[in-house]
């Protein structure tokens, strides 16, 4: 496991005469300048998002005249109008997306944790080979499997259903998460499963009773990333869902461009905010796991 905590400084309490003393003035100036720059960069980064939020409460013609963040006349017509602007009320697409997201999260948690346990804890023939293949599949561009996959799912009659979006997750095709969980399991002391084994547990029981409870952070990271990526995924639904009734949120949102030839920006912005809110909430409450998970896989 990558240690995200501050590395303990054993000498911190002891005075360190050898350390060159900075003049406090320079240090203060430097720190102030640094914060000013960081605040400026933060504002530039975040400004479009704030502006999007504020603009979603403005009439469309005002959106195109007002770069600022103040609101003179708050309107909610964008939300009420936008909600019903498409063939189905927007809630319909949210439900579609929710089904896909729940399925994808469940699939990834189930299949990736199983595979990760095998790679991290079992000895079996050709393990190194399979592990290498697993790592390589992280890098295979989806386009190269896309056409045959489409033909396959098309022949099975699964186009315009959510199966092509969910089933692959139950088959552990997001190898990135397998790798993430393998890394995590390697950090769990082996003594724990050995103790369970001596008590007569097989791999199944060790996995369920010992590993799964300990894997909380890795499972949370997987769930959160899967949520964010599936919720935003545009490419797969674009290909498999051609019936507007089956659209997920990103494809539905894109319809605002076609339907209104880009004129109803107020409604589009309002529904954009609606689609961003779940992402934002998940980010807000899951950030800890995201940071930890991404650091685990990114480290040495």
């Amino acid at each position, binding site marked *: 496991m*990558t*240690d995200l905590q*501050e*590395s303990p400084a054993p000498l911190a309490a002891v005075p360190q005469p050898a350390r060159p003393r900075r003049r406090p003035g320079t240090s203060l100036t430097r*720190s102030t300048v*640094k*914060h000013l720059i*960081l605040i400026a960069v933060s504002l530039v*980064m975040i400004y*479009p*998002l704030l502006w*999007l939020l504020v603009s979603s409460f403005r009439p469309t013609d005002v*959106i*195109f005249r007002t*770069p600022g963040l103040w609101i003179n006349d708050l309107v909610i017509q964008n939300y009420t109008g936008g909600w019903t602007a498409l063939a189905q009320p927007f809630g319909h697409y949210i439900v579609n997306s929710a089904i896909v997201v729940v399925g994808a999260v469940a699939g990834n948690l189930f299949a990736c944790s*199983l*595979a990760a346990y*095998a790679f991290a804890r*079992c000895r*079996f023939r050709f*393990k190194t080979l399979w592990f290498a293949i*697993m790592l390589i*599949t992280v*890098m*295979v*561009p989806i*386009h*190269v*499997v896309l*056409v*045959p*996959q489409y*033909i*396959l799912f098309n022949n099975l009659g699964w186009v315009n259903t959510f199966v092509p979006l969910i089933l692959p997750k*139950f088959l*552990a095709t997001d190898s990135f998460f397998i790798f993430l969980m393998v890394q995590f399991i390697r950090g769990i002391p082996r003594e724990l499963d050995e103790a369970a*084994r*001596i008590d007569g547990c*097989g791999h199944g029981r060790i996995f369920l009773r010992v590993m799964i409870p300990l894997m909380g952070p890795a499972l949370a990271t997987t769930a959160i990333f899967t949520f964010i990526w599936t919720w*935003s995924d*545009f*490419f797969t639904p*674009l290909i498999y869902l051609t019936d507007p009734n089956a659209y997920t949120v990103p*494809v539905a*949102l*894109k319809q605002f*461009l*076609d339907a209104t030839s*880009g004129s109803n920006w107020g409604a589009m912005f309002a529904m*954009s905010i609606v*689609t*961003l809110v779940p*992402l934002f909430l998940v*980010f807000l409450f899951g950030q800890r796991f*995201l*940071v930890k998970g991404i*650091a685990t896989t*990114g*480290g*040495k």
Partner: protein
Amino acid sequence: MSAISELSALRSGGGRPRTPEEKAALRRENNRDNKAAYLFLAPWFLGLIVITIGPLLASLYLSFTRYSLLQPPEWIGVQNYLDMLGDSRLHHSLQVTLTYVVVGVPLQLAFALAVAVVLDRGMRGLPLYRSVFYLPSMLGGSVAIALLWRQMFGTDGLVNQVLGWVGIQSTTGWVSDPSYALWTIILLHVWTFGSPMVIFLAGLRQIPVMYHEAAAVDGATRWTRFRRITLPLLSPIIFFNLVLQLINAFQSFTQAFVVSGGTGGPADSTMFYSLYLYQKGFGQFQMGYAAAMAWLLVLIVGVLTAVNFLLSRFWVFYDD
């Protein structure tokens, strides 16, 4: 240490003679491990065959055929590949994608690294800054943000309004002008520097403070310490980010699709490779041609990744 870990150490290389009972126990356990492992891996194996390797081979076959989904595939040899040689739109899309990758990826990583270095450990407000910088990369892949970008860089968009605010009158439609449209998407990519930044931050935490302190005692400036300590020790993580971002950037699709309204325009200036592939395969249903294009993509990404690994020998430093 427990009995089992000793047993495993023994198994891996120990030359101690084993009694028949020990051997039998070992075999039994190996057998059990083997069976369990393949059970645990069953979904993954199924996925590997049905979702990955099968389609991989099928698309290789399809790339030598003409196939429109309606009639069975018709074998045409290397015709698709020959057509690709003469397809100037394809060459253009490669050029667009390469520009995006070669400019966007290093720029984003440089930005991520710079901000990560400035965000010292233990500085005031660090969690807040980190969240603010990280948030865009969590939202950046969504259609909503791409739509926002389309508005922002339009003729009456936010960018021109802000420019007007500070006294610059601009009527450039950044997304509708072929010379700028691609750059707005590159900018969107740089805007999402948060996720490599978080990886860099974690890497920076692993560099012992004493290295910097010792160098500072010897009179090294901040810049020298960054070049001589931070960069070498961080190089494996820079490499990791580079490889992954490169592979991802080659496949980017959503932003270009939404910003250009699905056309890759204006004047093909945002015709990303994957967008062109999508148009060929799912717009014109030239599945064989799309499969051939996909294999070219695999080839390009594969070669670049291999080159990346070869070059890494010269600049990536492993501190083991």
